[in-house]
């Protein structure tokens, strides 16, 4: 198991190096002039040149790259011009917000999609199968920002059930002492149930938005995978041996159907990290997605590089986790690894 992890880790090193080079080049090649942007209104060409010099953008690309990598080795991702803060600090501040939102969204989605997918497969052609199809179609065809705005409109604006979409906490609450950066967990650690409730109610709508978006792939994959397994020989044998339907589906079929579902979950998780960008905008969520978009609009290189690098590392870590999870679910994978 350990050697498998080590072998997998080794293969990720080239991809991380590749990401570093590509993001560096992309941010330089893409149009948009940081110096002109930050020289502000009424800037003369001399002022722009002066700022370019100060930012080190007038040096040749290889020199810029070397200084970038040297700083990177020291854990320095540079300074964001839009927030004026070190990128590492910004990302550390914002990553838990995005992670909490994405994971919570994924949890809601799984809680709905897995049972729905299994039921649809077991009762193929019944009303629940149709419901499954409708939910999946609706989920994929609604753009996330639209679902987000719709939920805000209905639950906040019309009904007044949800709190104001003002980020992670109502303005009159202060954050609990930071331990994990996840407000739900931190507030429990501080045993402040009022803040826990407040944070949960802020989290519900944006997480629901993400959940609706990710329902479709998980439901469809669960259904398809269950169908394939239900038609397999060992299920027929189990049935023939007189095992109860619950036991056949729950223990034999479901466990075997999980492999492709886990793969899908990994993919959906990375999609969600992307979809986050728009949801964060609508709900004023202080996460990494909105941070990256603002940096992109301002041609602010350092945060973009930092964001892409962080995402790449997250993605690599996620794939590794999925590989390990495979081994747990199906011991044969462990042997092959």
């Amino acid at each position, binding site marked *: 198991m350990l050697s498998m992890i080590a072998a997998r880790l080794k293969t990720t090193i080239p991809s991380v190096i590749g990401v570093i080079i590509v993001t560096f080049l992309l941010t330089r090649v893409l149009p948009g002039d940081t110096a002109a942007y930050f020289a502000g209104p009424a800037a003369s060409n001399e002022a722009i040149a002066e700022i370019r010099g100060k930012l080190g953008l007038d040096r040749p690309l290889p020199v810029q790259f070397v200084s970038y990598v040297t700083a990177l080795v020291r854990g320095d991702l540079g300074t964001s011009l839009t927030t004026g803060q070190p990128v590492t600090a910004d990302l550390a501040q914002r990553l838990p917000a995005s992670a909490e939102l994405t994971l919570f969204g994924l949890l809601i989605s799984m809680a709905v999609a897995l049972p729905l997918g299994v039921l649809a497969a077991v009762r193929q052609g019944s009303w629940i199968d149709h419901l499954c199809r409708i939910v999946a179609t609706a989920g994929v065809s609604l753009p996330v920002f639209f679902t987000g705005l719709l939920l805000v409109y209905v639950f906040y604006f019309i009904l007044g059930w949800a709190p104001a979409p003002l*980020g992670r906490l109502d303005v009159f609450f202060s954050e609990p002492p930071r331990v994990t950066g996840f407000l739900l967990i931190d507030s429990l650690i501080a045993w402040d149930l009022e803040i826990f409730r407040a944070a949960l109610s802020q989290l519900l709508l944006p997480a629901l938005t993400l959940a609706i978006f990710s329902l479709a792939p998980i439901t469809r994959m669960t259904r398809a995978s269950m169908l394939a397994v239900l038609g397999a020989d060992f299920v027929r044998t189990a049935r023939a041996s007189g095992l109860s339907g619950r036991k056949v589906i729950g223990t034999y079929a479901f466990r075997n159907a999980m492999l492709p579902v886990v793969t899908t979950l990994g993919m959906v998780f990375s999609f969600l990290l992307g979809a986050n960008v728009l949801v964060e905008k609508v709900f004023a969520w202080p996460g990494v997605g909105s941070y990256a978009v603002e940096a992109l609009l301002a041609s602010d290189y350092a945060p973009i590089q930092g964001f892409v690098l962080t995402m790449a590392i997250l993605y690599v870590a996620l794939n590794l986790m999925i590989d390990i999870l495979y081994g747990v679910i199906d011991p044969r994978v462990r042997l092959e690894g």
Partner: protein
Amino acid sequence: MAITRRAAIAGGLSAPFLMTGRAGAQSPSRSETLLLVQEYGPNSLDMQGIGASQPVNGVALNCYDRLLRFKPVPIPAGGGNQVSMGELEGELAESWQIASDGMSCTFKLRDAKFHSGRPVTAKDVKWSLDRAVTIGGFATTQMNAGSLEKPEQFVVVDDKTFRVDFLRKDKLTMPNLAVTIPFVFDSELAIKNSGGDPLAKEWLKNNVAGSGAFKVESWKPGVETIYVRNDDWASGPLPKLRRIIARDIASPSTRRALIERGDADISYGLPPKDFKDLLDGGKINVVGVPIPNGVWGLYLNSQVGPFKDVRLRQAVAWVLPYDKMLQASLFGRGVDMSGGPETPKPAWPTPFAYKTNVEKAKALVAAAGGGFSTTLQFDAGNATVAEPMSVLIKEALGSIGIEVEITKVPGANFRTEIAKKTNPMTLNRFAGWLDYPDYYLFWTMHGNNSIFNIANYQNPELDKLIDAARFTTDKAAYEKFVVDFVKLVEREVPMIPIAQPTHDVAMQKSIGGYQFQPCREPDFRYLTKG
């Protein structure tokens, strides 16, 4: 950051705004707290610093004092105050006296204290003004616009007396001391924490060291800024509000929902359509001020491409559907700039005599050799207004044989594009802080060819008139120069004014004391709630 913060705590003086716990203990009630929602917040706390974004003006305005400020006057349409740029009142200055030769001004400072408790001295004023003229970037450019160029101009007479020597007689010098750039830092505190940098750039970016009406209690870039009142403020009547929470909410529809539901007190920067809807709805107050010295204009490149020919520029001015553009893109939230009198008023922006007249336009195009194709660009960041405007321009020009292709330039790239000065047509909004016609034209049509001279317009005759207007002290002569140069640009039309936009702010009915400032950021010092 870690070192500077430790240094700050060691200094002990900055404790009032680092220790948030104390403020929390006597936490002001909701009725004394204002919740402001805006598109994005400050990226620094130092407006003089390079790369400071638009909202940083709000920090400079509320947390720092200047020598002078503009005098509030009622907005003609009601709803609060705007400022009269010609009339100044003392902020840190208790009184001031212009020398008999008109070449210097001496300020007497009032007994004000910095947030640190130190008294404000003339030495601090000099340090701050020296910094503004030497730091480079926008701060220095803005100072130079009022002939404030060299540290030698700023003289400490004694602890409470300060003098500014003028390089030349420039009517913009005094008003330029009241904008959000020449504000006064606690120089001792800044130097102590500077870590060797004589201008303390890094420390002042993250810390406020001022004497203003508000202090920054907490600042989370990109998330929120919380201000608390400085109860010892000496430069004006104590503000009514004790705490302001400014949240950054990127989505305009969310900002609108928040204000309509009554959860936010004030909302800045909504699309014009939302302001119109809120106004029509009648539940929310919308205060609109035509942006002084601001105008949406169509810039026609006078050096490169088809619009070198003045007849074609005039043809475009004769064919634009001015009223339709005002309604469809600004939803009426602006002032029409067409159909003005033969002799323009000595004002800017002022309506040009052009109005929609297709026949005239067709004749001019025919005289210039017939139709052609060209491109029109605008900043994608302004798309809510600029996109419908561009489509109407395209349609109108199509009717006189000019094919227009529209290019939407991403915000980050727009400055680069306009700096090239090669695009034939550009739609843009420009607003100068100092409300003088010569100031606006100096930036947009003068031969100094600043980045905002998008039309690449060069005319020594115009330069002479602008410069003469800038430095004359005779009011009658000034007005004549203005009328002359407005007439000249009206005839030459390197830029066609379309509409003077309105700066709108939406607020709850319970909010009073709205104050419009030329920097267009909220002024918390006058606001009241309930």
